């Protein structure tokens, strides 16, 4: 009796609370959330899909921020919300280092935590090149879609067709080797070494030695020098494959 009575009282209180203290949420948020892919990757810079859905409805956030959803989600969001559709440039990640164990040397045997940041903290990393990819897979572990592979020669490689461009790997890499670039740009300088040519040659056979040849061959000044390193300007068209042919260390590739 007592327990039943207490239950009734509590039930009544709950019913009362549900009626008078209810939070009225815009029903469109739920619908927008259904349209979003639910990857919770954070690539839109919101704390997951639910937060982005709320921001779209409540704060009028741009609808073209979802990387995994791509153009399809943008179009569906535009139709549902009755706004003009926008376009989204698809970005993919690229690891700007080509020096795997076949081409770049290691200076000691690292026998510790299999994580790039941890390895980097031990005597500056086991790779001879202090700028190169360590290959312990920190980027691969943070990738929400498994787009990054650590090759048997221990270097990280992004599969551009799988990559959703969320940028999680960009922040995870302790050596800042990963960049987000427009997906249609295919030609890359796979080196991030700030060292001068002779030093690069000592530690890696596929590093940029700063010969500047590619900067003269590339159209639209799409490759510029940053010190002794050739850097692709991804805002400019670069189609000429001459830069690939003429690079003496073969560090320019098409992917």
């Amino acid at each position, binding site marked *: 009796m007592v327990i039943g009575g207490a239950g009734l009282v509590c039930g009544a209180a709950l019913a009362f609370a549900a009626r008078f203290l209810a939070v009225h949420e815009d029903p469109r948020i739920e619908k927008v959330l259904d349209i979003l892919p639910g990857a919770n990757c954070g690539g839109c810079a919101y704390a997951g899909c639910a937060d982005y859905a709320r921001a779209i409805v409540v704060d009028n956030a741009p609808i073209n921020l979802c990387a995994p959803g791509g153009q399809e989600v943008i179009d569906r969001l535009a139709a549902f919300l009755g706004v003009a559709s926008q376009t989204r440039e698809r970005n993919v990640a690229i690891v700007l280092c080509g020096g795997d164990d076949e081409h770049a040397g290691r*200076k*000691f*045997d690292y*026998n*510790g*935590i299999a994580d790039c*940041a*941890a390895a980097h*903290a*031990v*005597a*500056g*990393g*086991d790779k001879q090149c202090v700028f190169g990819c360590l290959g312990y897979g920190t980027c691969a572990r943070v990738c929400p879609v498994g787009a990054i592979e650590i090759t048997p020669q221990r270097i990280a490689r992004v599969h551009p067709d799988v990559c959703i461009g969320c940028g999680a790997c960009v922040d995870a890499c302790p050596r800042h080797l990963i960049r987000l670039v427009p997906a249609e740009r295919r030609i890359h300088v796979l080196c991030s070494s700030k060292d001068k040519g002779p030093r690069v040659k000592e530690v890696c056979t596929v590093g940029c030695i700063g010969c500047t040849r590619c900067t003269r061959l590339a159209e639209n000044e799409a490759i510029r020098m940053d010190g002794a390193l050739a850097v692709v300007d991804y805002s400019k068209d670069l189609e000429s494959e001459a830069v690939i042919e003429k690079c003496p260390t073969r560090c320019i590739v098409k992917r």
Partner: protein
Amino acid sequence: MVPRLFHARPRGVHPDDRKALSAAMPVETLPLPSILRVSMAQHLGAPATPVVKKGEAVRRGQRIGAASGFISAHVHAPTSGTVKAVQDAPTLSGPPAPAVDIEPDGEDAWTDLQPCPAWRNTPAAALVERIAEAGVVGMGGAGFPTHVKLQPPPEKHIDTLIINGAECEPYLTADYRLMLEDPQRIWTGACIIAHVLGVERVRIAIEDNKPDAIAAMAGVVREFKGDAAVVSLETLYPQGAEKQQIRALLGREVPSGGLPMDVGALVENVATACAVHDAVLTGQPLIERIVTVTGTPVQRPKNVRARIGTCFNDLAGFCGGLKGAAKLIAGGPMMGLAQPSLDGAVTKTASGVLALASEECTAFESLPCIGCGRCIAACPAGLVPAELSLYLEAEDYEAAAACHVMDCIECGCCAYVCPARRPMVQHMRRGKAWAAARSRSR
């Protein structure tokens, strides 16, 4: 006061000390090498700023790096010569820091030194000034600037000065040789520190596996009138760590996140006391130290008086070279820093260069924690390394910080006893780096 009965036994491990390799070797002075690479990051805190330029002539003892901040120390030229380069070079721990390369001219001409033999009549502040000017830092390993330690805030009362001659790290015999050969200098240095702090009680702590060092130090302390004594400590690694030593000697526990001064104690290494002696009595800055070059691949293990900036390669050559070395460590095997090559150079805190043969080091795979609890029994800081390593493996730094990862002293006891060969110290260092970065950003 808690009765002695309830004091837990000090915790630690008993690694084979291997000191016999170099213990009997008297300190030899290394001839002037052809190049000296003096790092500006030889101490805890901000690296010094180079104050010389390429091509400049310097004299022995001249300041070449100026302290850049409160916790920082000056750096001096170890000999006279010409500055060959001022550039970034990898430090012993890895990340690059500015370094000054000096090519000696062979004359070894001193800059003007200001000796202060009448230190007993000199005010404490002036002595601290001299010690700071000489760039003296803790030479036991951490490299904390000594002048900062000697200026405790007025609300902290220090009643005991501990001179640390424990040298609990295996292989190393640099402090041991110093105590045998130069006890008077250590003792005078200790007296200067005690004078600066106004401390009455001085204890010299030495592990009981060095009876002749205990006898040598007791010989010089005997004439002292105040409350001074040489205390023999049970041989136990890491008894030379300052918090563990205070506990063993005074029964006081340094609180979590606190400093020895919080419990009225101050610990200085014997080599630091010696450097304080030189800084005050002769005005000589800290430009050389004793380095133990040891390990089975070293043809003639020695204790070498080497100038700061001496390349490890020159040290190895002086000791007959290395034969079949598979691993190089700056410092001892427990807390030392593994080196990728012999390119490193002696710093103020480099007490040893250790080479290990391939049969002495194993590459192993780290396995999951089996929960045996050996690391908990061994941890001298009273932490639970097993739990911490699980959190840190999962990169849950918040949880690790809540479990006091910052109190880890990185002594390596947990990794030493771990049957699963887990890289415990590396985990702890990551956790500490994260927690330190967080407290800086707050």
